[in-house]
Protein backbone atom coordinates (compact mmCIF):
# COMPACT_ATOMS: atom_id res chain seq x y z
CA UNK A 1 0.00 0.00 0.00
CA UNK A 2 2.84 2.29 0.84
CA UNK A 3 4.62 1.46 -2.46
CA UNK A 4 1.54 2.29 -4.57
CA UNK A 5 1.14 5.68 -2.95
CA UNK A 6 4.78 6.50 -3.68
CA UNK A 7 4.36 5.55 -7.37
CA UNK A 8 1.29 7.76 -7.79
CA UNK A 9 3.18 10.60 -6.25
CA UNK A 10 6.12 10.13 -8.59
CA UNK A 11 3.84 10.22 -11.70
CA UNK A 12 2.25 13.43 -10.60
CA UNK A 13 5.59 15.16 -9.98
CA UNK A 14 7.33 13.97 -13.27
CA UNK A 15 8.10 16.96 -15.53
CA UNK A 16 6.46 17.05 -19.03
CA UNK A 17 9.24 19.09 -20.60
CA UNK A 18 10.75 16.47 -23.06
CA UNK A 19 7.34 15.82 -24.72
CA UNK A 20 6.76 19.49 -25.14
CA UNK A 21 10.19 20.01 -26.64
CA UNK A 22 9.67 17.15 -29.18
CA UNK A 23 6.30 18.56 -30.10
CA UNK A 24 7.81 21.95 -30.72
CA UNK A 25 10.62 20.51 -32.82
CA UNK A 26 8.22 18.51 -35.04
CA UNK A 27 6.13 21.63 -35.59
CA UNK A 28 9.19 23.62 -36.52
CA UNK A 29 10.66 20.90 -38.89
CA UNK A 30 10.20 21.53 -42.60
CA UNK A 31 11.38 19.39 -45.53
CA UNK A 32 13.86 21.38 -47.55
CA UNK A 33 14.34 20.70 -51.27
CA UNK A 34 12.34 18.38 -53.58
CA UNK A 35 12.59 14.65 -54.25
CA UNK A 36 14.07 13.80 -57.69
CA UNK A 37 11.56 12.97 -60.45
CA UNK A 38 12.71 9.33 -60.57
CA UNK A 39 12.20 8.90 -56.85
CA UNK A 40 8.80 7.20 -57.10
CA UNK A 41 9.84 4.93 -59.99
CA UNK A 42 12.96 3.99 -58.04
CA UNK A 43 10.91 3.06 -55.01
CA UNK A 44 8.65 0.83 -57.10
CA UNK A 45 11.63 -0.77 -58.78
CA UNK A 46 13.08 -1.63 -55.40
CA UNK A 47 9.75 -3.10 -54.32
CA UNK A 48 9.57 -5.19 -57.51
CA UNK A 49 13.13 -6.32 -57.07
CA UNK A 50 12.50 -7.42 -53.52
CA UNK A 51 9.44 -9.33 -54.70
CA UNK A 52 11.45 -11.10 -57.40
CA UNK A 53 14.14 -12.07 -54.96
CA UNK A 54 11.60 -14.24 -53.24
CA UNK A 55 12.05 -17.80 -54.57
CA UNK A 56 9.07 -19.44 -56.22
CA UNK A 57 8.87 -21.93 -59.09
CA UNK A 58 6.79 -19.60 -61.24
CA UNK A 59 9.25 -16.74 -60.84
CA UNK A 60 12.08 -19.09 -61.75
CA UNK A 61 10.23 -20.42 -64.84
CA UNK A 62 9.36 -16.88 -65.90
CA UNK A 63 12.96 -15.80 -65.69
CA UNK A 64 14.17 -18.91 -67.47
CA UNK A 65 11.73 -18.54 -70.34
CA UNK A 66 12.55 -14.86 -70.60
CA UNK A 67 16.22 -15.84 -70.86
CA UNK A 68 15.39 -18.10 -73.83
CA UNK A 69 14.45 -15.03 -75.84
CA UNK A 70 18.15 -14.24 -75.97
CA UNK A 71 19.59 -15.76 -79.19
CA UNK A 72 22.80 -16.79 -77.42
CA UNK A 73 21.00 -18.75 -74.70
CA UNK A 74 18.49 -20.28 -77.12
CA UNK A 75 21.31 -21.28 -79.46
CA UNK A 76 23.32 -22.85 -76.65
CA UNK A 77 20.31 -24.81 -75.41
CA UNK A 78 19.53 -25.98 -78.95
CA UNK A 79 23.13 -27.15 -79.38
CA UNK A 80 22.98 -29.12 -76.11
CA UNK A 81 19.61 -30.69 -76.96
CA UNK A 82 20.74 -31.65 -80.48
CA UNK A 83 23.97 -33.18 -79.16
CA UNK A 84 22.10 -35.20 -76.54
CA UNK A 85 19.51 -36.33 -79.09
CA UNK A 86 22.26 -37.35 -81.51
CA UNK A 87 24.12 -39.34 -78.87
CA UNK A 88 20.91 -40.88 -77.53
CA UNK A 89 19.73 -41.93 -80.99
CA UNK A 90 23.09 -43.46 -81.79
CA UNK A 91 23.28 -45.34 -78.47
CA UNK A 92 19.71 -46.59 -78.82
CA UNK A 93 20.31 -47.79 -82.39
CA UNK A 94 23.45 -49.65 -81.28
CA UNK A 95 21.55 -51.40 -78.50
CA UNK A 96 18.76 -52.33 -80.92
CA UNK A 97 21.31 -53.50 -83.48
CA UNK A 98 23.07 -55.73 -80.96
CA UNK A 99 19.73 -57.19 -79.91
CA UNK A 100 18.71 -57.84 -83.53
CA UNK A 101 22.07 -59.49 -84.23
CA UNK A 102 21.58 -61.80 -81.24
CA UNK A 103 18.16 -62.76 -82.61
CA UNK A 104 19.60 -63.49 -86.05
CA UNK A 105 22.40 -65.52 -84.53
CA UNK A 106 19.78 -67.63 -82.73
CA UNK A 107 17.85 -68.04 -85.96
CA UNK A 108 20.99 -69.23 -87.72
CA UNK A 109 21.73 -71.79 -85.02
CA UNK A 110 18.14 -73.02 -85.26
CA UNK A 111 18.55 -73.25 -89.05
CA UNK A 112 21.56 -75.59 -88.87
CA UNK A 113 20.75 -77.58 -85.71
CA UNK A 114 17.60 -79.75 -85.79
CA UNK A 115 17.60 -80.05 -81.99
CA UNK A 116 17.71 -76.29 -81.61
CA UNK A 117 15.00 -75.95 -84.23
CA UNK A 118 12.75 -78.36 -82.34
CA UNK A 119 13.43 -76.62 -79.04
CA UNK A 120 11.32 -73.79 -80.38
CA UNK A 121 13.71 -70.97 -81.07
CA UNK A 122 11.89 -70.15 -84.31
CA UNK A 123 8.64 -69.75 -82.44
CA UNK A 124 10.13 -67.06 -80.20
Amino acid at each position, binding site marked *: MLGLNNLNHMNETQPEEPDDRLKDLLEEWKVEGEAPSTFEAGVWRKIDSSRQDEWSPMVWVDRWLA*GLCSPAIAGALAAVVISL*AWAGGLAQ*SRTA*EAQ*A*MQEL*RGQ*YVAAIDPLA*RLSGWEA*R
Partner: protein
Amino acid sequence: MKLGLWILGGILFLGIGVYQSVYRVAHANVIALSHGPNPELEWLRQEFAIEDAQWEVIRTLHAAHDEQCLAFCAELEATNADLLGLMRESREVTPEVEAVLRKATELRERCRRTTLQHVYEVSRNMSPEAGKRYVEMMTTHLVDESWHEHMVPGYPGNEATSHGKHP
Protein backbone atom coordinates in the same frame (compact mmCIF):
# COMPACT_ATOMS: atom_id res chain seq x y z
CA MET B 1 7.11 -15.79 -71.48
CA LYS B 2 4.96 -16.86 -74.42
CA LEU B 3 7.82 -16.39 -76.88
CA GLY B 4 10.10 -18.32 -74.53
CA LEU B 5 7.64 -21.20 -74.50
CA TRP B 6 7.53 -21.27 -78.29
CA ILE B 7 11.32 -21.28 -78.47
CA LEU B 8 11.53 -24.09 -75.90
CA GLY B 9 8.92 -26.13 -77.79
CA GLY B 10 10.81 -25.61 -81.02
CA ILE B 11 14.09 -26.75 -79.50
CA LEU B 12 12.49 -29.88 -78.02
CA PHE B 13 10.78 -30.66 -81.34
CA LEU B 14 14.13 -30.31 -83.08
CA GLY B 15 15.73 -32.66 -80.53
CA ILE B 16 13.07 -35.32 -81.08
CA GLY B 17 13.52 -35.01 -84.84
CA VAL B 18 17.29 -35.42 -84.58
CA TYR B 19 16.90 -38.45 -82.26
CA GLN B 20 14.46 -40.19 -84.61
CA SER B 21 16.55 -39.46 -87.70
CA VAL B 22 19.82 -40.67 -86.20
CA TYR B 23 18.14 -43.82 -84.84
CA ARG B 24 16.54 -44.66 -88.19
CA VAL B 25 19.66 -44.03 -90.25
CA ALA B 26 21.96 -45.94 -87.88
CA HIS B 27 19.47 -48.81 -87.57
CA ALA B 28 18.65 -49.03 -91.29
CA ASN B 29 21.23 -51.76 -91.95
CA VAL B 30 19.75 -54.10 -89.33
CA ILE B 31 16.19 -53.41 -90.45
CA ALA B 32 17.14 -54.28 -94.04
CA LEU B 33 18.93 -57.39 -92.81
CA SER B 34 16.05 -58.59 -90.63
CA HIS B 35 13.48 -58.13 -93.37
CA GLY B 36 15.48 -59.82 -96.11
CA PRO B 37 14.62 -63.25 -97.58
CA ASN B 38 17.16 -65.19 -95.47
CA PRO B 39 18.05 -62.98 -92.52
CA GLU B 40 19.97 -65.68 -90.66
CA LEU B 41 22.22 -66.32 -93.66
CA GLU B 42 22.74 -62.60 -94.19
CA TRP B 43 23.74 -62.38 -90.53
CA LEU B 44 26.33 -65.11 -91.13
CA ARG B 45 27.70 -63.26 -94.14
CA GLN B 46 27.99 -59.93 -92.31
CA GLU B 47 29.18 -61.32 -89.00
CA PHE B 48 32.05 -63.26 -90.55
CA ALA B 49 32.73 -60.90 -93.48
CA ILE B 50 32.39 -63.71 -96.03
CA GLU B 51 33.54 -62.93 -99.55
CA ASP B 52 31.43 -63.59 -102.64
CA ALA B 53 33.27 -66.72 -103.81
CA GLN B 54 33.18 -68.24 -100.33
CA TRP B 55 29.56 -67.21 -99.98
CA GLU B 56 28.41 -69.24 -102.98
CA VAL B 57 29.97 -72.40 -101.54
CA ILE B 58 28.55 -71.76 -98.08
CA ARG B 59 25.06 -71.15 -99.48
CA THR B 60 25.21 -74.45 -101.36
CA LEU B 61 26.39 -76.25 -98.23
CA HIS B 62 23.65 -74.60 -96.21
CA ALA B 63 20.93 -75.62 -98.68
CA ALA B 64 22.11 -79.23 -98.67
CA HIS B 65 22.31 -79.29 -94.88
CA ASP B 66 18.89 -77.70 -94.59
CA GLU B 67 17.30 -80.68 -96.36
CA GLN B 68 19.03 -83.07 -93.96
CA CYS B 69 18.00 -80.89 -91.08
CA LEU B 70 14.33 -81.00 -92.08
CA ALA B 71 14.48 -84.78 -92.42
CA PHE B 72 16.02 -85.05 -88.95
CA CYS B 73 13.36 -82.77 -87.52
CA ALA B 74 10.57 -84.95 -88.94
CA GLU B 75 12.28 -88.08 -87.63
CA LEU B 76 12.85 -86.54 -84.21
CA GLU B 77 9.25 -85.43 -83.92
CA ALA B 78 7.99 -88.89 -84.86
CA THR B 79 10.35 -90.60 -82.40
CA ASN B 80 9.43 -88.18 -79.64
CA ALA B 81 5.73 -88.80 -80.27
CA ASP B 82 6.29 -92.59 -80.13
CA LEU B 83 8.31 -92.27 -76.95
CA LEU B 84 5.73 -90.06 -75.28
CA GLY B 85 2.93 -92.48 -76.20
CA LEU B 86 4.80 -95.50 -74.87
CA MET B 87 5.88 -93.71 -71.68
CA ARG B 88 2.30 -92.72 -70.90
CA GLU B 89 0.87 -96.18 -71.63
CA SER B 90 3.46 -98.08 -69.53
CA ARG B 91 3.93 -98.15 -65.80
CA GLU B 92 7.43 -99.59 -66.08
CA VAL B 93 10.39 -99.41 -68.44
CA THR B 94 9.45 -102.05 -70.99
CA PRO B 95 11.76 -103.33 -73.75
CA GLU B 96 9.71 -101.25 -76.21
CA VAL B 97 10.29 -98.10 -74.18
CA GLU B 98 13.99 -98.92 -73.96
CA ALA B 99 14.16 -99.45 -77.71
CA VAL B 100 12.51 -96.12 -78.52
CA LEU B 101 14.69 -94.35 -75.91
CA ARG B 102 17.77 -95.80 -77.55
CA LYS B 103 16.50 -94.77 -80.98
CA ALA B 104 15.85 -91.21 -79.76
CA THR B 105 19.33 -90.97 -78.24
CA GLU B 106 20.96 -92.30 -81.40
CA LEU B 107 18.97 -89.87 -83.48
CA ARG B 108 20.05 -86.94 -81.33
CA GLU B 109 23.66 -88.06 -81.64
CA ARG B 110 23.32 -88.26 -85.42
CA CYS B 111 21.82 -84.79 -85.46
CA ARG B 112 24.71 -83.41 -83.40
CA ARG B 113 27.29 -85.19 -85.56
CA THR B 114 25.75 -83.97 -88.83
CA THR B 115 25.47 -80.41 -87.54
CA LEU B 116 29.06 -80.47 -86.31
CA GLN B 117 30.21 -81.77 -89.66
CA HIS B 118 28.35 -78.93 -91.38
CA VAL B 119 29.92 -76.38 -89.04
CA TYR B 120 33.41 -77.66 -89.90
CA GLU B 121 32.65 -77.62 -93.63
CA VAL B 122 31.37 -74.05 -93.47
CA SER B 123 34.36 -72.94 -91.41
CA ARG B 124 36.75 -74.35 -93.98
CA ASN B 125 35.22 -71.96 -96.52
CA MET B 126 35.90 -68.89 -94.39
CA SER B 127 39.10 -67.05 -93.67
CA PRO B 128 41.12 -68.91 -90.97
CA GLU B 129 40.36 -66.33 -88.32
CA ALA B 130 36.65 -66.13 -89.14
CA GLY B 131 36.45 -69.92 -89.39
CA LYS B 132 37.99 -70.33 -85.95
CA ARG B 133 35.57 -67.84 -84.44
CA TYR B 134 32.62 -69.47 -86.23
CA VAL B 135 33.53 -72.92 -84.87
CA GLU B 136 33.92 -71.51 -81.34
CA MET B 137 30.54 -69.80 -81.51
CA MET B 138 28.64 -72.72 -83.00
CA THR B 139 30.18 -75.45 -80.86
CA THR B 140 29.25 -73.43 -77.77
CA HIS B 141 25.65 -73.64 -78.89
CA LEU B 142 25.87 -77.31 -79.78
CA VAL B 143 27.29 -78.33 -76.42
CA ASP B 144 25.26 -76.02 -74.24
CA GLU B 145 21.73 -77.37 -73.93
CA SER B 146 20.46 -74.04 -72.66
CA TRP B 147 21.90 -72.26 -75.67
CA HIS B 148 18.71 -70.36 -76.38
CA GLU B 149 19.04 -68.59 -73.03
CA HIS B 150 22.36 -67.30 -74.25
CA MET B 151 20.58 -65.60 -77.09
CA VAL B 152 18.94 -63.23 -74.68
CA PRO B 153 20.83 -59.92 -74.70
CA GLY B 154 22.29 -59.11 -71.32
CA TYR B 155 22.64 -62.77 -70.34
CA PRO B 156 25.85 -63.12 -68.26
CA GLY B 157 28.86 -63.73 -70.47
CA ASN B 158 26.86 -63.02 -73.60
CA GLU B 159 28.09 -59.67 -74.77
CA ALA B 160 26.57 -58.17 -77.87
CA THR B 161 28.48 -58.89 -81.05
CA SER B 162 29.20 -56.47 -83.80
CA HIS B 163 30.20 -57.02 -87.37
CA GLY B 164 33.46 -58.81 -87.77
CA LYS B 165 34.36 -58.63 -84.10
CA HIS B 166 34.74 -61.31 -81.53
CA PRO B 167 31.73 -61.91 -79.27
